[in-house]
């Protein structure tokens, strides 16, 4: 493999992994507080379409990001209402959200299919760092949202594990009864985690329509939201481990698309199956190793004080 090919593969890996980083990080937030939100796929789609519409209308990619995050956050708020306040079954509610988001995004985006993105995020070279061999032209020549993800992950880890709000958030996911007895507002924290988590899923979707593709087509995410859910298990709910998982899957996808570049002779349809098959394989291995023991103890359970 030439240096050029390696650079392109690395750059594509990071670009492919970035939406997963955003979406899975959002889900880590929600799940750490004890709420399973299976609606990631729907939230990403709504985020993607809302962001795209906003950028077409306003011409500002950053307003697109805001619109994408708000749209997905609004859907997530619906999930929080159902699961936290009404204590509905989290799996059913999440599925409803995934399906609703899918339908809503194709409904809203119908007339935007084939419309060019007037202001996609463009790659920016980081002064100094972009002079590094190989890494400079891959890791440090990316668009602004990728740099956001670089900063977000360590910050997210620090928030969860080194601050009081993070401690309280995790307590709600481990033992809401304890958290409540300690005077922590379980309902408020769960709402906030689900909504902010949804906004990150929206950011992941927005990344696709604003930077990666950058356009809107129906069902743009093609299952990335479900892969993000699997990644959360892979990462054992830890944002730092998530990065490895996301880029691992990014590299699988990148290789699929760049097989010809790498000189691999294979059917493109088979290569497109790779991310799904890889996800399933990893899930199977994790199940063997019983990694889900790291799962937040109260994940999926509604909490009510007087029952």
């Amino acid at each position: 493999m030439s240096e050029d090919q390696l650079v392109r593969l690395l750059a594509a890996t990071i670009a492919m992994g970035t939406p997963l980083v955003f979406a899975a990080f959002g889900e880590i937030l929600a799940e750490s507080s004890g709420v399973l939100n299976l609606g990631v796929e729907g939230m990403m789609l709504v985020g993607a379409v809302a962001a795209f519409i906003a950028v077409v209308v306003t011409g500002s990619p950053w307003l697109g990001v805001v619109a994408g995050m708000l749209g997905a956050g609004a859907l997530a708020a619906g999930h929080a209402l159902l699961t936290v306040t009404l204590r509905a079954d989290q799996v059913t509610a999440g599925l409803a959200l995934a399906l609703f988001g899918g339908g809503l995004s194709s409904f809203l985006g119908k007339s935007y299919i084939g419309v060019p993105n007037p202001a996609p995020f463009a790659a920016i070279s980081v002064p100094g760092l972009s002079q590094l061999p190989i890494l400079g032209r891959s890791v440090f020549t990316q668009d602004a949202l990728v740099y956001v993800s670089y900063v977000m992950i360590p910050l997210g880890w620090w928030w969860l594990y080194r601050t009081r709000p993070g401690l309280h958030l995790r307590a709600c996911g481990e033992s809401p009864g304890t958290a409540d007895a300690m005077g922590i507002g379980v309902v408020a924290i769960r709402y906030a985690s689900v909504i902010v988590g949804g906004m990150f899923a929206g950011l992941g979707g927005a990344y696709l329509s604003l930077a990666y593709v950058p356009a809107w087509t129906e069902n743009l995410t093609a299952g990335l939201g479900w892969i993000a859910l699997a990644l959360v298990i892979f990462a054992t709910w830890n944002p730092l481990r998530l990065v490895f998982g996301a880029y691992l899957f990014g590299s699988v996808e990148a290789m699929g698309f760049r097989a010809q570049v790498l000189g691999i002779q294979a059917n493109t349809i088979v290569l497109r199956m790779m991310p799904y098959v890889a996800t399933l394989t990893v899930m199977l291995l994790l199940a063997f190793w019983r990694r889900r023991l790291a799962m937040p103890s109260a994940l999926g359970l509604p909490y009510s004080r007087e029952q």
Partner: protein
Amino acid sequence: MADATLAIERPAPRPRIPEWVEAILVRLAGIVAALLVCAVLLLLQGYHPLLAYADMAVGAFGSRFAIEQTLLKAIPLMLTTLGVTLTFTAGLWNIGAEGQLTIGALAAAWLALNHPSLPALVLLPGMVLLGLLGGALWALVPAVPRAYVGMNEVISTLLLNYVALLVVDYLVFGSWADPTAFNFPYSPAFSDTARLPMLFGDVHLGLVFALAATVVVAAALGHTPWGYEIRTSGASPGAARYAGMPVTRNILVAMAASGALSGLAGMAEVSGMIFRVQQGLSPGYGYSAIIIAWLAKLNPWAAVPVAILFAGLLNGGFALQTSKVPAAITYMIQAAILFLVVAGESLLARVRRARAAAAQKAALGGAR
């Protein structure tokens, strides 16, 4: 309950409305609310919601042709709904009916494409068998790791849907491509012997399959020891294990049976309506099935009318496309119904709890 409290028997307050009527009312309210929500979205997008809904109703039930088309679409919906009903009752979240339908269709199509000259009496039963088998095997792929190592079936069944769609692509762009179709992605058409006989109009024998399957599933769940085990596993996996029920085996059997029913739906689609393999074999029947099963409260009998209603919704959506409203509106309405009915049910549960507590308080207040 919070702690061991003074035990007082419930005075069994008679609710003014029976619970099953409440369940139906909540569902109707959910449907109405979903239509309202989507009407607002239609308005915001510049469509006239009333006209759109009227067009949908006409497209769904407005003519003999429309009713036939609706019944035709109800067939796969009924079969996949029965499939997911089985697994949901067992507490298994099989979200993979879409993929199981697809693979069932491919398995049946394999026979039809490779042995087109067999007599119908051999070919059709063979296709049914392969459809059942294909769906069952595809469902076992996630079921085996779920049963033995506890792998999360929600994500795995769902991811397999995407794989199944790619398998279709692989075949129709590859070895199954119709050589006369100028690279259009579909297989050659089935021979006449590989086509299901019609009952009336466009409605094929699959309707009989679906109704027969309804009877079988309802009987199996309600009147056999196996059905009791399945219901117990769903209601309390712990109790099932401690009662010595074969939990692992039941996971496999329930998933395989569920996949088989979806596979049969796929067979009926290719053999009764599409007559070839192409992209988009199913417009999301497997996902609608989840919603229908939920609305029907996992009752196989109730699933029949709900499936017909949803088939109408689907047809109505297609009818709308002529007036430029995106067909996606039907999926939005479906999902909004599920979302709002889940909300309504949870709200109802809350009201019931409060009502029970109030009745209790009144009864005790009198005693104090």
